[in-house]
């Protein structure tokens, strides 16, 4: 398939996944804001999250204080900020439009309708718009998009590049959310201070892992197990291991003459996570581990662009 087409498909799915990740984050913090006495923890968590997602500067340019309501609005609906959910939905739609002939009609209509509805929601919204409802809707649209992708697309290169975009973005998002909460994941956090239950609920809900945790561990929440679940569990859909496994297998299906080294690095990342034990990660230090992981992920993204897509210099 055309490199340019692959590039648009890859970014289309990255943007939809990003919109969903942001919606989950807003949703988790929004729920927290409804609980009594959550003020200080909430602001701290919002600040850390915006830092991990490189949003702080753009936010500070428009707003003085980190105030939950303003953050929710900014992340969800800011038209001018390219990283908002609204902008992600627009970017996903524009990428899809550029290659609408390579998508199934169902997938195109889903993405187009999502953008049209988001646009009119953003235009119509009242001062007291229900952010909770909006992010819930975004999650549903993302679920629908994914379902239509899996349910209607031919399992050819177009599908694989779409999936590569999804899982690279998801790995990136999980790693960043963990980064925002890294102090809670430090070794010794277990034994020492009692972990803040608000913080845990935000972290786990943002990754759709709250119920999963209970189901897997049937135990109280401990930092060690949270980290294990989100980094090393193969059966956890948003864990780093799971995402890397999917990236590797989809990459294998599209390999070309020059992509051997890229595939090797993807395989290495997968193997590293697959054969790691949580004790080793903790010994290395969770923050260091995450930092290294994000750097390798970035390298992988660059290599994929160079081998298959439209390299940034040409684009």
């Amino acid at each position, binding site marked *: *398939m*055309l*490199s*340019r*087409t*692959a590039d648009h498909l890859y970014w289309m799915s990255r943007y939809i996944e990003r919109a969903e990740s942001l919606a989950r984050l807003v949703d988790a913090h929004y729920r927290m804001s409804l609980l009594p006495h959550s003020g200080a923890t909430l602001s701290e968590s919002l600040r850390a999250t915006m830092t991990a997602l490189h949003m702080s500067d753009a936010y500070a340019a428009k707003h003085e204080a980190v105030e939950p309501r303003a953050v929710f609005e900014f992340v969800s609906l800011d038209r001018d900020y390219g990283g908002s959910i609204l902008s992600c939905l*627009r970017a996903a*739609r*524009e990428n899809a*439009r*550029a*290659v*609408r*002939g*390579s998508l199934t*009609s169902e997938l*195109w*209509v889903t993405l*187009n*309708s999502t*953008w*049209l509805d988001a*646009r009119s929601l953003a235009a119509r919204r009242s001062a007291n718009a229900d952010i909770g409802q909006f992010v819930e809707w975004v999650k549903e649209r993302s679920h629908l998009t994914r379902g239509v992708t899996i349910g209607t697309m031919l399992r050819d*290169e177009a599908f694989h*590049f779409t999936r590569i975009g999804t899982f690279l973005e998801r790995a990136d998002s999980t790693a960043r959310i963990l980064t925002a909460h890294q102090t809670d994941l430090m070794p010794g956090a277990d034994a020492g201070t009692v972990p803040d239950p608000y913080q845990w609920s935000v972290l786990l809900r943002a990754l759709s892992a709250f119920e999963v945790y209970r189901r897997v561990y049937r135990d109280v929440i401990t930092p060690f197990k949270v980290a294990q679940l989100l980094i090393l569990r193969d059966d956890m859909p948003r864990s780093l291991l799971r995402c890397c496994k999917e990236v590797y297998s989809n990459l294998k299906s*599209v390999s*070309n*003459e020059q992509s051997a080294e890229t595939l090797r690095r993807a395989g290495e990342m997968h193997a590293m996570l697959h054969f790691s034990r949580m004790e080793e990660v903790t010994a290395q230090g969770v923050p260091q581990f995450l930092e290294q992981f994000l750097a390798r992920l970035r390298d992988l993204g660059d290599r994929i662009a160079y081998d*298959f*897509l439209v390299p940034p210099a040409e684009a």
Partner: protein
Amino acid sequence: MVGKPYDEMYSGATSVRAPYRRYAEWLSDQPAERLAQKRAEADALFHRVGITFAVYGQEEGAERLIPFDIVPRVLPLEEWIRLETGLKQRVRALNAFIHDIYHDQQILKAGVIPAEQVLCNSQYRPEMQGVDVPGGIYAHIAGIDIVRDDAGEFRVLEDNLRVPSGVSYMLENRKMMMRLFPELFSEHSIAPVDHYPDVLLDNLRSVAPTGVADPTVVLLTAGAHNSAYFEHAFLAQQMGIELVEGQDLFVRDEAVFMRTTQGPQRVDVIYRRIDDDFLDPLVFRPDSMLGIPGLLAAYRAGRVTIANAIGTGVADDKSIYPYVPEMIKFYLGQSPIIGNVHTWMLRKPDDQAYVLTHLEELVVKEVHGAGGYGMLIGPAASKAEIERFRKQILATPERYIAQPTLALSTCPTFADSRLAPRHIDLRPFVLSGRDVSIVPGGLTRVALTEGSLVVNSSQGGGTKDTWVLES
């Protein structure tokens, strides 16, 4: 002067023409609210599916709809068969003409058309002289604009042989009608149109360079910002071929390749939807960012087919149009089945003298104008406009032609929630390759403003579904 227009549906105040009889009965049974609701549904669906045209300089995702009217245009089978035969005849002659012009120029030697009319035309491409194209076919896709005059006669208003557009609306309008009013399709026997992409692909494959067993066909677009982008994407998808932009293609050793995720892949046939001028910056406009350097060399070497061929504009120019009936006689030895609209050529002194004294009742068109621009409609024009045109005609008469103001036929159309007659035309799409074929019907365009004769979508025109009744 202008006669009373032919109404497609009614032959008198209350009498309905035969092909519309069943539809009219159905229509009179429909409550106004249901029709209003269906019209709203159609708009919402067109937006959702993104059947839109891009408007330059507008916010992303703010494409506009081409208004769709829910009252179909109906043609009885016998009328269609006559049209079909006439259209095939015309397009065969036009292809023969273009081949002749770029080879022996017999029609010029025979004095049927003045040589300077052709050779000095800006659409004549000397680069094509002596180049053989597969099957001798130049206009693979032709959109011939047909109107019906006040006597009920069909006439050709214009030939479009470069990159005619609109076929996607023909197909989508049909889908929309079937979705909105399925009951109408069980009550009528309507010739299907949805095989158009298959016929098109088959034709494109049939004109691949000789020796290519399994040709790769691509559709070349100017990109997502082009106003007809929806149609490009739609056709590529329906045919299952790649939708490429100039940047996706390159030429090496006089062969065309596309950049793919698996490395370069050879391209054999390019269905291009950009104008000649932008195809190859090495030969035509050097500032074109849309084209592929070296494409013309590969084309001349016979290593790739371009559809439509380069240089077809010489045959659909308004200054050549008056000669098409002569071409039919010259190349096919037949008399034309569908006539032209009478045309005065202002470079001829007699014609000019007549036109200048009758400007207020004629339509004057620029020879190279398109899309309804650069046109004077005498009866609707102000004195100042008429004087402006008079000056322009006197300065450069060869740039203009004139035609009588046609009373284009009308068809009932929704306007402000009420049915009212509006002027229409018809653009059937004639495909040439292995054979010449036409999907029954075409795109009916309708001027939505009362009294307006301009049906172009860029000037507020809408479209209708077009039915050819099989019985």
